[in-house]
């Protein structure tokens, strides 16, 4: 018999730290009604920036305005990962979002644009879920498999 953790228990009320439920809803809205692919891709990158801003602000920092490799999104991720190596678990997710933005906006009439946008939506959603997960457990321990230890002095 397969035991699925918590499958039959009622959902626990979850505190929406940083407004991630609203962000997730915006991503879902783009998925269901994308409109212009290029505009939707831009909006997804903006959402990605907002997600990272939530993380950075929660750490008591001001999000940077600079760009890395042409993206503020990437600069924000670098800032968010500073002193927090486990945050690099979403490094490639951030870069995939930038990559899909490039694919879509550089050639919006490409036959794969619809598929690319669908994947960009999923990548943005993954970033949202990952960062919200980290925020959710803040103060209780770390979310990530490469987490910072409770005792780091080794004594």
């Amino acid at each position, binding site marked *: 018999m*397969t035991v*699925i*953790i*918590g*499958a*039959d228990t009622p*959902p*626990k009320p*979850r505190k929406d730290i940083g407004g991630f439920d609203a962000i997730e809803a915006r991503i879902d809205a783009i998925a269901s009604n994308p409109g212009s692919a290029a505009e939707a891709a831009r909006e997804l990158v903006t959402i990605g920036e907002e997600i990272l801003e939530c993380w950075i602000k929660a750490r008591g920092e001001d999000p940077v305005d600079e760009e890395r490799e042409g993206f503020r999104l990437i600069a924000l991720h670098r800032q968010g990962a500073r002193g927090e*190596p486990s945050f*690099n*678990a*979403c*490094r*490639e*997710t951030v*870069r*995939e979002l930038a*990559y*899909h933005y490039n694919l879509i906006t550089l050639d919006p009439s490409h036959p794969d644009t619809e*598929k690319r946008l*669908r*994947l960009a939506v*999923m*990548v943005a*959603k*993954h970033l949202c*879920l*990952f960062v*919200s*997960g980290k925020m*959710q*457990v803040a103060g*209780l*321990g*770390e*979310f*990530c*498999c*490469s*987490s910072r*230890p*409770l*005792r*780091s002095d*080794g*004594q």
Partner: protein
Amino acid sequence: MADKSKPKTYQEVGYYPGCALEGTGHAYNRSTKAVAGKLGLKLKEVSNWNCCGAMEVKNIDPKIQTYLSARVLSNAAHLDKVDVVMAPCNGCYHNLKKAEYDLTYDPESRAVVDRLSTKAGHAAFEPGQAKTIHALDWIKEAIGEDGLRERTRGKLAGLKVANYYGCMYTRPRHIFPEKDQGPGSESTSEPHFMDDLLAAAGAENVDFPLKTACCGGAHTLSDSDTSTKLVLNILQAAEACGAEVIATECPTCHTGLEMHQVRAEKRFGVKTTVKIMYFTQLLGLALGIKPRKLGVQENISDAMELILEKQLQS
């Protein structure tokens, strides 16, 4: 054709299955051994191995985790006389690599490992006495794509695969000095060893944007819904890319994908049909090994129908 001039490496390696491969990842253990047997590669299980310290110990005291991983490497080097230890689990692989790194660069870790090794009555591990590799490195080096191509004759042709590496196979970059070394080496930003091996066996790899994304493994107990949503996103992305199967190379990721695939349907009413299989199971099928010997029946994700449909069964 295989490159006959290339020296054969990793023909016999120390094998560190780790705890997961004796439990939830049993099919990974089974398929890894079956593939080794078929390829004529020898696995010498590390004598009296212990837990690598995984996340549980590391989250309390990382130096103890370093010691636990170092003890595994010490046993391999001193008891088994091997200089390469192959760890198929991403968590074990990560921890053993980290121990190698910490013992090289962190005097405090060195002191703790020396003290505990003396107390336990075994030789302390010294970096360089044995090195850790992943199962992907092992097959890539020991057999290579050409060798696989010769042995499998495109058996996986027509099978669309999304290769999922998880987030620990390449992170943090500094503990993997052999990666990002140009052509032929593994990439930490765009890993491809699994893609290479399965393509050599004939599989069609899809362009999958979440190949190193977090599976929410560590969150399974504390916030199951987020883990389920993360996995569901991975499964749906794989399906959107046209994948019929997700190939895995980590027992934790694999179990997480399988469990949360079921849970996503129960909890959120979202059904996904993409199958989840260890890359060693897929390579085993390509090599003509029977599904049962590869532990396919042990998977929660039932891939038998797909195996029959694609005529992958010998």
